[in-house]
């Protein structure tokens, strides 16, 4: 159907018009926003690594969190294969780069992806992750997801979050992730790890 005809019918069928609400919503604010964020992240099934210094070695941190992982994926500057070696297993580890893999399918079998979040939301544990890599599949296809977030970027509620989020102009995609993938589709029994990450670790970096 032509767009004009489609819209004309809507215009003809509109009999009266309403205004937007005058006042804005006053969203909840927590006494301790940081603590609420940590609690919510854990409630939705995520793990939190707290009090990480700005110059800390992320490789070592990730290695300790996932000692059995073999295949990593990230395009963050600080993440290097070298840094990931030296755990309790000296067999070859693999680091994949979501910018240089040929296809999204090549990311299947990734154990741990490490990505950067830009806004954390205390009311529900959501973390905004703008796509900054060619293949966003790493956010979902990896068995486990590590999200790095600066603690100064935690806000109270979604109103504050939507005021702040942005997207990378190259990709124009972003997602709020709150904990691991889950489902209750069989008899309402909660199961963690449906189609996307089976576990999420949030690394909160100090200012």
């Amino acid at each position: 159907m032509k767009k004009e005809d489609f819209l004309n019918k809507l215009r003809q069928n509109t009999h009266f018009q309403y205004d937007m609400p005058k006042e804005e919503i006053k969203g909840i604010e927590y006494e301790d926003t940081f603590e609420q964020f940590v609690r919510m992240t854990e409630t939705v099934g995520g793990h939190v690594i707290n009090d990480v210094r700005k110059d800390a070695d992320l490789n070592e941190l990730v290695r300790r969190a996932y000692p059995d992982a073999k295949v990593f994926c990230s395009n963050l500057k600080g993440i290097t294969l070298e840094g990931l070696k030296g755990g309790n297993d000296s067999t070859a580890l693999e680091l994949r780069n979501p910018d240089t893999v040929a296809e999204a399918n090549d990311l299947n079998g990734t154990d741990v992806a490490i990505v950067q979040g830009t806004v954390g939301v205390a009311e529900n544990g959501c973390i905004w992750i703008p796509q900054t890599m060619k293949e966003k599949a790493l956010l979902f296809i990896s068995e486990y997801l590590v999200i790095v977030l600066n603690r100064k970027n935690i806000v109270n509620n979604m109103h504050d979050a939507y005021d702040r989020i942005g997207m990378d102009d190259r990709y124009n995609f972003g997602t709020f992730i709150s904990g691991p993938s889950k489902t209750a589709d069989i008899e309402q029994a909660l199961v963690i790890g449906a189609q996307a990450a089976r576990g999420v670790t949030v690394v909160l970096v100090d200012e």
Partner: protein
Amino acid sequence: MSTIHSKRAARFVADAEKTSWHDATFWSVREKRDKMAQQLPEWEDLREHASQIKKHTITHLADYLEQFSDSLESRGVKVHWAKDAAEFNETVLSILQSHGVTKMVKSKSMLTEECEMNPYLEQHGIDVVETDLGERIIQLLHQKPSHIVMPAIHLKREEVGRMFEEKGISKEKGNYDPTYLTHCARLHLRDQFMQAGAGMTGCNFGVAATGDCVVCTNEGNADMTTSMPKLHIVAMGIEKLVPDYKSLAVFQRLLCRSATGQPTTAFTSHFRQARPGGEMHVVLVDNGRSDMLADTEHWQTLKCMRCGACINTCPVYRRSGGYSYTYFIPGPVGVNLGMLRDPRKYSDNVSACTLCLSCDNVCPSKVGPGSQIYVWRQSLEKLGKADKLKKAMSAGMEYLFDRPAIYTTALKFAPLANYVPDCLTNIGNINAWGIGHAMPEFAKKSFHELWKEGKVK
């Protein structure tokens, strides 16, 4: 006077154990929703805002749709306009055919159910794979969803497990543990995502100002659907628009709390451009929505965001199940949407309501589904769908109540009915009110008489 709903409901409640489980399960979802609502002091403000924002958007829909499509097109997204289900299905098929796609993965969309897209595409040789676990289960069982958010809720784990064994999705015979079965499905669906030539999602919210198509899931299946294949098709009913991010925040906060009693879905993804090397299409669908807009009594049903809160709280749904209704969406909102679709075809469902209005009180955008059902009932006469027995009784009562002399005389002799044996008042279930009810005993003296004798304090 039996409706299809009441007959099917009778079969549903015949299994008392399953009925109790169904009832308790949905009531617990309702309670979780209450807990979420009580944690936010601004909850009622959010509902009122949601209602006002939707009223505004729906009555400025053409303008917002232009803004939305302009924004999408500015980033190379192809926007299609479908006036009805047939046009929608044809549009999707032609996109798929022009890319040589034979397998499409998709996340849950009530719009595609409404348009009966899957059977249409399958007839044309497209393998359509549902990727929401519940949707996949019922697809493999050739069933329809019994609930819009929890589509496979009517099934027990054994039924799912046995089907997974038959299809080769699960390997361990007799293992019906939900965690095991979910992980089997994860592996099964992983292959589907990687093989598919296209991915389709619905759209929970379209943001006019930015062109974002926002999709909310707990499983992350919409994200897998759009991260693996290069072609992304969004199926979107035009009522899903909101003006901007400020408005979106209100709805994002309400949706999942109302739907499942969680503070948010695990994934809230914003799409507004094709992925690198890919293509993105948005199909905007009217299919009766512009006519709903013109309906001065029922246009506010367009405010519905399909959270299912009204279904979970409904005492009739909880005790009769999704398959008792004749429209594919059950519960209070389904009764309304069915009537808007085809009132003659779906009028049976309007009696599946006690008018308790619990739904009105939980609806996050204040659609007022129960109040709307009341209004629909007033139109049954006009539609030629009023129950004949009830009509005759109403006429009789009107005659009686308009004539005090006859009424008083009738009342005086009413206690005689006490001597009529039960078997005569309920022969062969002719008297529907006699089923499951004992005949009340008439008092020897009426209230009126007692009042006159000064015996009423």
